[in-house]
């Protein structure tokens, strides 16, 4: 009897301590940023955020999701800032009144990755011709299928640039996996398939296997990132001052320089372009 009572007292105590310690951590100055898997998997945030935190004392908590999901997290008011890469989806977000203003931050590009043996013979710098050839040869192709920025870009390349209605024309060779960039690359690596990736994730990806870049340098493979403060008028809990401070820093010469300085094996991953109003 006594034993059980003691144990239950200890239980309640332990739970109290655990919940309390969780609360203490939450007290510090912090914001939640919903962003894309590419910015996390490429290691950019791991490099950038400590620099920002040291300067401002603001801890940035990043939730890495696909662009579509990240914007939805903002729509629910669960993030203070969204940092994504799909201009059309971002403009829709603004049109709904969910965001304050879209600020271009940086760009890199997409690359079409595939097995060294290149069964569809697509190597080169013409993305439209490459996709047409993949479809003709029914070569295995992995699609993100998750409404991410990369997925939206992939669909536009099929539909607009290659003139293929991929939703109608896809066959067993086209595998829509509904997962992040890393998972898509892992699958392509394991099954020698073609896949569209952002360059940053590709460079930092460690399980390349037989994969290599086959198509790059086509200007249609451009990949622009934007950052938006979630509208505090719609979501009063948004920490607008801290969020704006983060955005201002990203767009400042100092933040832009930090982005440019991030390299893997000497190769620059992202190119700052906050000064380009059309981006």
């Amino acid at each position, binding site marked *: *009897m006594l*034993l*059980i*009572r003691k144990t*239950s007292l200890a*239980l*309640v105590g*332990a*739970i109290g301590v*655990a*919940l309390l*310690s*969780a*609360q203490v*951590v*939450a007290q510090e100055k912090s914001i*939640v940023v919903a962003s894309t*898997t590419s910015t*996390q*998997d490429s290691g950019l*945030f*791991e490099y950038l955020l400590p620099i920002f935190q040291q300067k401002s004392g603001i*801890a940035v*908590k*990043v*939730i*890495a999701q696909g662009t579509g999901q990240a914007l939805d997290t903002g729509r*629910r*008011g*669960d993030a203070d800032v969204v940092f994504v890469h799909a201009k059309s989806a971002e403009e829709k977000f603004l049109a709904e009144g969910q965001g304050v203003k879209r600020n271009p931050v940086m760009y890199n590009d997409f690359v079409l990755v595939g097995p060294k043996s290149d069964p569809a013979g697509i190597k080169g710098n013409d993305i439209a011709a490459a996709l047409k050839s993949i479809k003709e040869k029914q070569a295995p192709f992995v699609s993100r299928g998750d409404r991410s920025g990369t997925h939206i870009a992939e669909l536009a390349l099929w539909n607009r640039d290659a003139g293929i209605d991929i939703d109608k024309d896809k066959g067993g060779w086209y595998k829509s996996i509904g997962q*992040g*960039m*890393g*998972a898509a*690359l*892992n699958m392509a*690596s394991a099954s020698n398939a073609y896949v569209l990736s952002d360059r940053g994730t590709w460079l*930092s*990806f*460690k*399980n*390349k296997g037989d994969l290599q870049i086959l198509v790059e340098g086509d200007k249609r493979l451009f990949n622009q990132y934007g950052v938006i403060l979630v509208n505090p008028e719609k*979501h009063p*809990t948004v920490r607008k001052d801290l969020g704006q401070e983060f955005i201002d820093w990203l767009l400042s010469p100092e933040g832009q320089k930090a982005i440019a300085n991030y390299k893997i094996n000497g190769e620059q991953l992202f190119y700052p372009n906050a000064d380009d109003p059309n981006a």
Partner: protein
Amino acid sequence: MNDFAIAFTTAFDLIGRLDPQLRGIVGLSMAVSLSASLLAFAMGAPLGSALSVYRFPGRSALIVIANALLGLPPVVVGLVVYLLLSRSGPLGSFGILFTPTAMVIAQSLLALPIVVALVHRTTAGLWATYGDLLLNDGATRFRSLWSLMNIGRDGMLTAFLAAFGRAIAEVGAIIIVGGNIQGYTRTMTTAIALETSKGDLPLALALGIVLIVLSMTVSGVGLYFGRGLTSR
């Protein structure tokens, strides 16, 4: 084979030099999963015991439900807790989405049916044996609850360890409600998921080995102290 060799070397290296980042992740995993399983136990054990002791309408339905929920998918629990805790959800004003507290809530919901079902199973047998004795002794049914749990200590321990095992091993719920934020809500399992997605499979597997060592240690410690409890 080479991947496995690298994974084991990395795992021992990580444990050996007590990697500070790993320490934080292990600490959070333990804190969250222990709190969750303790919480589930504190609620579930009396409930499971009550299902043995009291007779009321709907009792068998509750037992069936508890057993059916043993197979509760973590991702569904994660989603439900997410929608409840989201700023646009009914409990949004607490602002605990993407915090360790949210992860504790999700994991205790997952662990609760396990505790209820296992405790009920243990105490049902004990009640059949000792029930009349306890009641004839003048104990109320409420007091009998505690006596039963005391007699069935080893079954209680098993229920707790099973709840902890469920909590520490799952990733589906906490990655949704915690967000896998570095240094804040990243646990062993979400870190494994992340390293897998970065293609660093040996490191992911090494973290998996560390996780298995960790949960074996907890079970070992639990059983060791449990022996002290049950042998008296």
